[in-house]
């Protein structure tokens, strides 16, 4: 198990190098100049422009800029935002809890609903329940996130007025962040109604972000279950006189979960891209919105640093999934 873990860990290094190159190159390939954008409509004199280029180091060859950037990373310095003048790392960690809170809620929702839905659909295959679940899942999977989000806002916030339109908590409440997770902080603050407000702000973004992973997990669980239910060991379990609940929930599900866990791991990447859209729609102050704003301003340091950090998060999650995979599948242990 330890060797397996170290091997997987070693694979992270080349991935990390690749991501750093791509992230660095990508933002520079986009047309648009950060200094001109900073100057805005006021314009800038050529002398001042060259002076600023030298300040930010943009006048040096690209390869030198890259090596300088990598040297910074190795010392734990991801550079400073051109716009806010604050360290990228600090900005990231201020905003990341908001995204993490949203992503965690979304993946929990997707797993808690998706796996049972897939299991029931498989057990009752061909029934109206199966067909409607799979129809809804296919619709969810095909739904463009931004459009779905807007529909929900129009209906639940605009028409019914049940949930707020944007943000993480009502402006009536203010407290210093402790953990960065609004659900926990609002409880810690002890202010009446704060937690309820935080929950109501979280509901719609969570649903929107969970939609695609939920659909994928439900469909994957169903097909994995269908395959497993026809296996000989399920017949053996039945021949022992076990109750159907135990056969489906333990003997079959345990085997069906192996491909599903892989799927869940892959959905984390989808969740990150989904977070960018969802956060933009709901003005959720997380890293998705932060990245979009920075691309608009060609904030080189933030975009390349942010991409690297998001990639790291995805790699860590996938590493965790691989380790988990080793636990639930005895055949690849050792």
């Amino acid at each position, binding site marked *: 198990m330890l060797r397996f873990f170290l091997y997987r860990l070693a694979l992270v290094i080349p991935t990390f190098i690749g991501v750093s190159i791509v992230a660095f190159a990508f933002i520079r390939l986009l047309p648009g100049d950060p200094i001109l954008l900073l100057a805005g409509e006021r314009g800038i004199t050529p002398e001042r422009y060259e002076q600023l280029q030298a300040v930010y180091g943009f006048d040096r060859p690209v390869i030198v800029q890259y090596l300088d950037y990598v040297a910074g990373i190795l010392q734990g310095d991801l550079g400073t935002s051109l716009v806010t003048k604050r360290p990228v790392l600090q900005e990231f960690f201020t905003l990341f809890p908001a995204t993490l809170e949203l992503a965690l809620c979304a993946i929990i929702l997707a797993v808690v609903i998706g796996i049972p839905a897939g299991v029931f659909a498989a057990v009752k295959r061909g029934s109206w329940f199966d067909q409607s679940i799979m129809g809804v899942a296919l619709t969810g999977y095909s739904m463009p996130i931004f459009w779905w989000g807007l529909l929900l806002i129009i209906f639940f916030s605009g028409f019914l007025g049940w949930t707020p339109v944007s943000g993480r908590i009502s402006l009536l409440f203010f407290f210093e962040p402790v953990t960065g997770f609004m659900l926990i902080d609002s409880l810690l603050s002890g202010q009446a109604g704060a937690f309820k407000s935080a929950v109501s702000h979280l509901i719609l973004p969570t649903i929107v972000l969970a939609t695609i992973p939920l659909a994928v997990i439900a469909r994957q669980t169903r097909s994995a279950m269908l395959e497993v239910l026809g*296996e*000989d*060991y399920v*017949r*053996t*379990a*039945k*021949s*022992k*006189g*076990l*109750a159907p609940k135990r056969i489906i929930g333990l*003997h079959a599900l*345990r*085997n069906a979960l192996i491909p599903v866990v892989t799927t869940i791991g892959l959905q984390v990447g989808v969740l990150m891209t989904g977070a960018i859209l969802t956060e933009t729609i709901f003005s959720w102050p997380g890293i998705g919105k932060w990245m979009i704003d920075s691309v608009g301003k060609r904030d080189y340091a933030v975009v390349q640093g942010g991409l690297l950090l998001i990639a790291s998060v995805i790699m860590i999650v996938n590493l965790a999934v691989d380790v988990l995979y080793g636990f*639930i*599948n*005895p*055949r690849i242990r050792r």
Partner: protein
Amino acid sequence: MALLEIENLTVSFKTSSGPFKAVDGVSLTCDRGEILSIVGESGSGKSVAMLALMGLLPWTATVTADAMRFDGRDMLQLGAKDRRKIIGKDIAMIFQEPMSSLNPCFTVGFQIGESLRIHLGMGRAERRERAIELLNLVGIPAPEKRLNQFPHQLSGGMSQRVMIAMALACDPKLLIADEPTTALDVTIQAQILDLLVGLQESHGMGLILITHDMGVVAETAERVQVQYAGQKVEQQNVRALFSDPHHPYTQALLSALPERATRHGRLPSIPGVVPGQGDRPAGCLFSPRCQYATERCTREAVRQDEEFGFALCNYPLKDGQPTGYPETAEAAP
């Protein structure tokens, strides 16, 4: 009263092209301490009949029978819940593919302990002790170590031993072995058969051995029931069956044994295949492949009495010759 009595069992499957009778009016009995062997080609409904008894058939199957009694209880009247109290406890079954019949995600110890917990309510320590005892019984060395292993760490023969240990966990009164040696090496086959017969004797349980291998029948069984296309065609004691088969199908099966083909030349085979859903003939199902078939056989097949081993045949064989065979047999159309 026999331990297991099945009368006129019929199992049909719903298929997209209409119902298919996999088992057609089969009756059988098996007593305590007896080894009954059910023999037949693939598709003769041997396994399906036993799966019907266990309640392991998919929902597309319809099971009817005049009687299905086990240990004095009517299995047909039992609800699913009551049936589960019997199967796995008093009736246990082992299967053809030992490697895929064990759940790859759970240890050997867990899988053996499961029946002990559910049927006998044993605690953890008690289960472990009993599992070690069972593994010893089926001849697995170092059982303490094996308990914590997963099925992928076992060989085929080892897996079948574990399956047998699982089946014996609650001291069943009847053990059904569905082609237990088909997937194994020849050397391992003999070991597993010896083990099964030895355990059957020492535990005094009934054993129903499903096989397509006459060699296995000769080595193990006491009474043999031959099935063809879902019907019982003959039933005899093993010695009598080998020396004087009454049904032409049994005769053909026996003459296809390599050990029996004394003359040099090609091994005799039975022409044609077992009829499937679409090509079930009228009258005797074996008639298209039978060398003695007459026009009468395409209309009916009569059940003979004990003298002819209950053969389902119009002209049962006696010492290799058909009885009551018309002098000038009109050839079957």
